[in-house]
């Protein structure tokens, strides 16, 4: 049983006008096996939360803490965080020209597992994981995210989730840009990983659509850089009906 604990997290980003505070004190605790949906309007800071936990250099932590089983996540490099058990499925996965998917996956698995996976079992493992996500085997020879469609990029993220087996996954708008079929495939991929492990999930989304496929245990409404309401799955139904209007004050 692991715990990801975010306490009073405050984050700023440098702009031309100086530092702008985006996260204004976020508190959230996720335990193994739990799925927390973070829902909020655009610009509320949801992605900033995701990238800050992963350690993107663009964001400056000005206060608060993030710990994984007591270990200070904010003190770790980006790769140390991943090796500690955190995984960020990105909204806009980055193209890495010249690096093949197969080379990338093996390098990442080697780093996360602490030793190179045995070639024979690894090839089978990757093939099976790809076929579960309806990915053609030719995918492995392509360069990381280069020329991928939106749906292919998201499948590739979930493929990594399955192979790298983190303790906690942050899914940043994984549903954006997906048609119904692709959404279903990707969601089933997440659910398979959940079923076969003790994965804790932070599911960041604007829409309730993905929650039909990935059932949250908790729903948190995010607005203006903090969590403004929390509840169970029923809260998502309320958002579906009424939107975010009551949380947005101008």
């Amino acid at each position, binding site marked *: 049983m692991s715990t990801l604990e975010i306490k009073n997290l405050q984050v700023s980003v440098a702009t031309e006008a100086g530092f702008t505070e985006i996260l204004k004190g976020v508190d959230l605790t996720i335990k193994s096996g739990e799925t927390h949906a973070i829902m909020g309007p655009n610009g509320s800071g949801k992605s900033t939360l995701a990238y800050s936990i992963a350690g993107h250099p663009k964001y400056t932590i000005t206060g608060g803490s993030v710990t994984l089983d007591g270990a200070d996540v904010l003190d770790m490099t980006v790769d140390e965080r991943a090796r500690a058990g955190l*995984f960020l499925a990105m909204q806009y996965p980055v193209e890495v*020209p*010249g*690096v093949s998917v197969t080379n990338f996956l093996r390098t990442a698995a080697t780093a996360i597992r602490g030793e190179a996976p045995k070639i024979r079992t690894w090839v089978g493992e990757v093939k099976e994981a790809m076929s579960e996500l309806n990915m053609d085997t030719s995918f492995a020879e392509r360069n990381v995210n280069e020329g991928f469609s939106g749906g292919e990029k998201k499948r590739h993220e979930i493929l990594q989730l399955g192979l790298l087996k983190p303790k906690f996954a942050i899914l940043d708008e994984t549903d954006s840009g997906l048609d119904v079929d692709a959404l279903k495939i990707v969601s089933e991929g997440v659910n398979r990983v959940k079923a076969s492990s003790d994965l804790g999930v932070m599911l960041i989304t604007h829409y309730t659509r993905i929650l039909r496929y990935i059932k949250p245990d908790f729903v948190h409404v995010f607005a203006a850089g903090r969590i403004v309401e929390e509840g169970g799955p029923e809260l998502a139904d309320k958002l579906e009906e009424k939107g975010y209007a009551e949380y947005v004050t101008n």
Partner: protein
Amino acid sequence: MSSLTTNYLAPSGREEAWRFTPLSRLGGLLDSAITLADSPSLTALDLPQGVSFSKIATAPLSQTTDEATLRVRAAVALTSELSIASGVEVSEPIFLKRTVKGGVPEASRLVVSLAPNARATVVIENVGTAVIAEEIEFSLGSGSHLRFISSQEWDATTVHLGSHHAIIGKDAEFISTVVTVGGSLVRLLPTVEYSGTGGSAELSGVYFSTSGQHLEHRMHVDHNVPNCKSRVNYKGALAGENARSVWIGDVFIRAAAEGTDTYELNRNLLLSDGARADSVPNLEIETGEIVGAGHASTTGRFDDEQLFYLQSRGIPAEIARRLVIRGFFAEIVSGVRIESVEERIMARIDAELDAVANI
């Protein structure tokens, strides 16, 4: 030929063609007081059937204004000629072995000649210490296909001025990959003209310039006949104080060259402060009746987003950097299509990366 040599004047450095080159570092190659040694520095071993290699007195196949090439023509009495007979398809690559004089200014001249419908791969691996001016002319008969790989893995003090000029016949295809990692100063001129319609040229290259190295590549593609194609793709990385690279991409589409299809690209990756990459694409078009013409040039720092993505998958920063840089070069190196040569080039790039790991 004598009329050309009498026209020779050493460049002052103000000429467009020489303005990027540190003339003081040419080791006497353009010094008219020094006679270049006539050097048959390339030899061919184990020639397959239909392939010959000999020394002949032959007039140049092309015209040039390049001072170094003119000096080569003046110095070399007998040109080495590699010939592939009509219709001969050589499946194994032909390796030309380089033997250099070790610091004496020397001149080397080679003609690679493919008769119609011949097909071959020619590899030159340049190693050692040399001060060398070189001219290679390629003559591609109609329907022939030549893959040419020239790797410059010279020792640190080597000076190398070279001209690689291809004359591409009707429906012939010329694919060249230039790899420049060694040497103090390397200045190569991969140039192309067409002698028939439907010809195709693919000029690609990689270079890795570290402290004090000057690596210069100047393309010139002369689209002088209709319906020909050219692709240029050069990629370079630079690291360390006074690491220099120069890439010039001149593409000229003459009025007669309707149906031309051309694109050229140069990308530079600056891995540290103190390095400088000059990149000058230049497209001159005399007819609008073309399939396409374009160019792109980028020079930039390491992409932090790529680094973040790889690191976020647990890959340590140093390994991630190496993965990205290897990937940057791999696109071109994989085009060599000879496994042993590709491995050798990537190993050399790894060695360069090891050397600059602390920068």
